[in-house]
């Protein structure tokens, strides 16, 4: 399934927004944290897991989805949230912990919930999969349209939740796609050191579903393979497991010294940064011009700037509002 030119441009634009968003967050995150880095300080405290490099996984999948489809994500959710259409201003405000944030600041960066576009996540490794299976079941039972997509890291594929959820999806033949973002690291532990086989997509055999491995961190290839899977799911053809080779251009979280990375790995990855790669390809294929690119870059920056400004300008909830929303 090949993306149209329009779809390719959509993917490129969302990759830009995602990357600029992360770059903005990265910068602001460090405010108040120098010279001594203390996670508790600054306008954005706590852990921060950036998605730089993984944008293809977000756009290549979400290009096939509408707001009514369900996406569950992980501790590293920004790129996926953006591609899924989560309100950027409300998400930025959430990351800042502001009252205008998606949850009024109760959740934070690892807990992005936007029911308008059916997006949610969990900071616990492996816990994106069960809820996606449940949402898929709910769609079938309610005879509502829509598929569910669960994102997880390659490290999460060694968590028991993965196995249980995939088996259940296989038994019940639910419209759910499992998307593994294989950035080859789980914090400091490599895929090779933690996973008994090379490709998690081969594990699909255990669940009676097709498994696909997508090389190259390429949005177009992802669009293609995932498109088949989603079409199959929409037509009652059941679940699919997809593993996408991608790259983590940043540390696991901000503050990560990354001493565990083999020398040169990061530089090598930077050289195949998917955004310039895609740009060049779009240029070469005549889909993108310098002028259009400049406009998209500007547009993306404007969106991000607006969201960040909104977040900055917003107020915190009153402290005692912490007591609200435990129950509804």
């Amino acid at each position: 399934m090949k993306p149209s030119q329009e779809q390719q441009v959509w993917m490129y634009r969302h990759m830009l927004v995602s990357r600029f968003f992360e770059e903005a967050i990265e910068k602001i995150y460090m405010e108040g944290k120098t010279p001594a880095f203390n996670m508790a300080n600054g306008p954005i405290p706590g852990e921060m897991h950036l998605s730089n490099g993984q944008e293809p996984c977000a756009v290549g999948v979400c290009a096939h989805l509408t707001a009514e489809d369900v996406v569950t994500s992980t501790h590293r959710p920004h790129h996926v949230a953006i591609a899924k259409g989560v309100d950027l201003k409300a998400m930025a405000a959430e990351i800042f912990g502001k009252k205008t944030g998606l949850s009024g600041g109760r959740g934070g960066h690892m807990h992005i919930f936007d029911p308008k576009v059916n997006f949610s996540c969990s900071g616990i490794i492996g816990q994106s999969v069960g809820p996606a299976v449940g949402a898929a079941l709910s769609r079938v039972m309610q005879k509502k349209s829509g598929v569910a997509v669960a994102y997880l890291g390659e490290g999460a594929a060694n968590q028991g939740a993965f196995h249980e959820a995939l088996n259940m999806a296989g038994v019940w033949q639910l419209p759910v796609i499992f998307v593994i973002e294989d950035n080859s690291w789980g914090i400091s532990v490599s895929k090779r050191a933690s996973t008994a086989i090379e490709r998690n997509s081969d594990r699909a055999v255990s669940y009676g579903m097709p498994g696909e491995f997508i090389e190259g961190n390429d949005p177009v290839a992802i669009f293609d393979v995932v498109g088949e899977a989603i079409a199959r799911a929409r037509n009652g053809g059941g679940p699919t497991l997809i593993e996408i080779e991608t790259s983590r251009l940043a540390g696991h979280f901000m503050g990560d010294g990354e001493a565990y990375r083999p020398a040169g790995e990061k530089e090598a990855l930077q050289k195949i940064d998917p955004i310039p790669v895609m740009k060049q390809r779009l240029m070469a294929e005549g889909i993108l011009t310098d002028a259009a690119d400049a406009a998209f870059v500007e547009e993306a920056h404007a969106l991000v700037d607006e969201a960040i400004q909104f977040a900055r300008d917003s107020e915190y909830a009153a402290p005692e509002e912490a007591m609200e929303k435990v129950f509804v």
Partner: protein
Amino acid sequence: MTQVKEKERKLTIARAMAEAIAQEMRTDDKVFVMGEDIGELGGVFGNTRGLHEEFGGERVRDTPISETAFIGAAVGAASDGMKPVVELMFVDFFGVCFDAIYNMMAKNTYFSGGNVTVPMVLMTSTGGGYSDGGQHSQCVHATFAHLPGMKVVAPSNAYDAKGMMIAAIRDPNPVVFMFHKALQGMGWLGTEKEAIVHVPEAAYEVELGKAIVTRPGTDVTIVGITSGVHFGLKAARILGEQGVSAEVVDLRSLAPLDRDTVIESVKKTGRLIVVDEDYHSYGMTAEIIASVVEAGVPLKAAPQRVAYPDIPIPFARPMEQWALPSPEKIIAAFNKMKED
């Protein structure tokens, strides 16, 4: 229990639960049931009996032995418009799936600022006394009630079981519904006859988070939940024969906890015994005692707890029976108060 006694219609807790679920399933097609052996078998403890027959395998679904998956799935389904009633067969198994329960089911509403709701019921069996060993006899009331974001309820009789199950299904919040095996009315588990009471046929709710004075009295307050209530009632009758008027409070809900009802009672009686089949330390008994004393209620004697000792539950009957709470232990606790 302010039930009007039309025609006596005594049900077990198991049947009351099944009836409640069936009635909600009839009026709300969003309600469905998931769990191990809850389909054709009707639940190991009988509380889904008849549902598969009436509603079929789509709405009454047996799952693989994958608690993390199906409870996680219930969270996802609940937030997508459904109202799952899921069963964790024995509460003792919570350790294989607690993240889905306490970090997702219980917290997603908060994490979403109330924009995402998780209207689901997790029903699970508790308790021992029939020699099922240390991984199949626990209550772990406090383990659930300690953690925020979920309601935790546990009825002691069929009337409450039906009303609280209906209230739980209708509640937009996640509710953990604990049922004690010895009260379930399954003959093969023994049967506490006093748990089998009149249950009106029509659907009704018993408000979650409200304790009830099951037996009024003036000399001592005995607070319990599930089996503890029945131990308390038996003790109260024996004490009554000795001229002591014991008030028995059935908490019914562990969270929200109805401290007011307990405090009112102890204000009247001045004496407090708390009974719990869950482990002694860091448990419900401590929470009740602390709640009463921090409220400054004047006491005529030091409060007492009758709880399960801090040991894994032994299999052998003599050891297990020795370790369980009992009417005798409650009476001994009362006698100890007299010495104070």
